[in-house]
């Protein structure tokens, strides 16, 4: 097991380097002079020169990248152009907020998704199955930046049950987390349903039924446990997509997360924030997938740790 984990981490290293390379290139690829971009359009030539020297932008590209990498490892991403604060101080609290939102969403999407998927599989090829699968299709096809507005309209404006924005406690988390969770709950439901149907065809399920086990016990005791294994991998992927999707939800619910900060920083051309934010998201995503992979191997004894 340890051997397997170490190997997975080794395989991950090039991807992590690739992520830093892409983030590094964001500033380099912006048309025009990076020093001028950071100094601001109205800065005079001396200031631009000073910025260029200070950030090492006068050095060869490969040296610059080395510097960027070294700084990234130590968590030093420079200063925000707009606020002059350190980038880390700007993005870290925002990142934690996004994680909070993402975690709440993943919990909702797993509970709702697994429940719906199990019900659909249990009632395979009946009206219940078709209705839930219809819901699933709607779930993956509805833009969150629209469903979020509808949810605000209903639960905040009309009913007044929840606040429409802000982040002052659990109550502010409900609507954005539900909005964000919907598409991913739909995907989890679809996955659970198909793996549940697969499992229900297995011999040990027939055995359980043959020995007179109650149907609910067959479904929840025997089948569900095994059907959930493929769902775990999907949840890992979902975590990443939720972080990506959080951008839109954070904007709608004025949730002070990293996605919203990145969007605002693109608009104000605050590139150090964009670079660090994008890098932090991607790194978290890749690391989550690593953990999920390890978990998957741990859960499914049929998979060996050594061979691939």
């Amino acid at each position: 097991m340890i051997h397997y984990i170490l190997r997975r981490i080794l395989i991950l290293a090039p991807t992590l380097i690739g992520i830093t390379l892409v983030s590094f290139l964001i500033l380099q690829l912006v048309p025009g002079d990076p020093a001028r971009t950071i100094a601001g359009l109205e800065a005079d030539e001396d200031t631009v020169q000073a910025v260029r020297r200070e950030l090492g932008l006068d050095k060869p590209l490969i040296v610059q990248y080395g510097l960027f990498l070294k700084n990234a490892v130590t968590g030093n991403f420079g200063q925000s152009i707009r606020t002059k604060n350190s980038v880390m101080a700007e993005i870290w609290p925002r990142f934690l907020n996004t994680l909070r939102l993402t975690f709440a969403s993943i919990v909702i999407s797993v509970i709702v998704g697994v429940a719906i998927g199990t019900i659909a599989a249990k009632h395979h090829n009946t009206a219940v199955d078709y209705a839930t699968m219809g819901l699933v299709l709607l779930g993956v096809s509805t833009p969150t930046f629209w469903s979020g507005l509808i949810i605000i309209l209903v639960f905040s404006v009309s009913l007044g049950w929840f606040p429409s924005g802000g982040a002052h406690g659990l109550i502010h988390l409900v609507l954005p987390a539900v909005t964000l969770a919907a598409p991913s709950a739909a995907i989890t439901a679809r996955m659970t349903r198909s793996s549940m149907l697969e499992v229900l065809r297995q011999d040990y399920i027939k055995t359980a039924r043959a020995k007179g086990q109650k149907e609910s016990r067959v479904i929840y005791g025997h089948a569900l446990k095994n059907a959930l294994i493929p769902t775990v991998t999907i949840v890992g992927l979902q975590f990443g997509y939720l972080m990506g999707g959080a951008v839109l939800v954070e904007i709608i619910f004025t949730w002070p997360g990293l996605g919203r900060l990145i969007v605002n920083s693109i608009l104000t051309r605050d590139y150090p924030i964009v670079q660090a934010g994008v890098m932090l998201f991607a790194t978290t995503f890749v690391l989550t997938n690593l953990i999920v992979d390890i978990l998957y191997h741990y859960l499914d004894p049929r998979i060996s740790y050594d061979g691939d």
Partner: protein
Amino acid sequence: MTETSPPKKPIGQFGLFWRRLRRNRLAVAGMLIIAAIVLVSLLAPHIAPYDPLKQNYRALLAPMSGQHWFGCDQVGRDIFSRIVHGAGITLRIGVLAILIGMAAGIGLGLLGGYYGGLMDICVVYLTDILLAFPGLLLALAVIAIFGPGITSVILACSFSSIPQFIRVTRGVVLAEKEKDYVTAARAIGERHTAIMMRYILPNCVAPLVVLVSLRMAVIILIASGLSFLGFGAQPPSPEWGAMLSEGRAYLQTAPHIAIFPGLAIMTVVLAFNLLGDGLRDALDPRMKI
């Protein structure tokens, strides 16, 4: 030469596929919706009762009525007419982004899968890196570089589709390249490009068709999301995401401004998802896309 003998059933592979697809009512519904939207976008000037940009100060925030089916927005523009005109923008972005993403993805997938070795390592590496930026993030990175605008949105959407097209193409190439017909093609002296394009690529068509339909759904969501954030089509363009964003400020007083563009996006995305699922079931239900 049993492998090249003509198909036994007179109906043929395509006929079989078409029959299965036609029997899938949801897929047919998807197809009909897509056809209707293409038609609407082509005939927009004839269908829309009003000029999508013309402001009418006597109809500010007008609710739904016989005159204005979907009501009017904050400057009195007819929302139905704007949605009709917006269909073309959405489809154009989607089709262009798919074409670019597909061309790059198929090319890289073929090269990596066929030649293997260092080339393949590079292609897989690129795929892994692109996939490390989930969903909207890769698109946002592209927007950060190229700045807001429709061209950037098209590029951003195509970038986010490249890894999927690489994966599907490469997977098929790896499965096919060891088969006898490819060895035979090599033996008769076919060139590498000919083997890739004429022998292997046709095997990719089925999964690629499914992928195109499902990716269209995702791309339309990303593109309208980017416009909603203010990075894509700019006002007064009747792009659906941009319209939704404009309607946000009037959510309490005139919710119809935001509701109808959202419904339009959802309908198109749903149609492509229905068609994609139907295509997969008709071509090969075990296909993993």
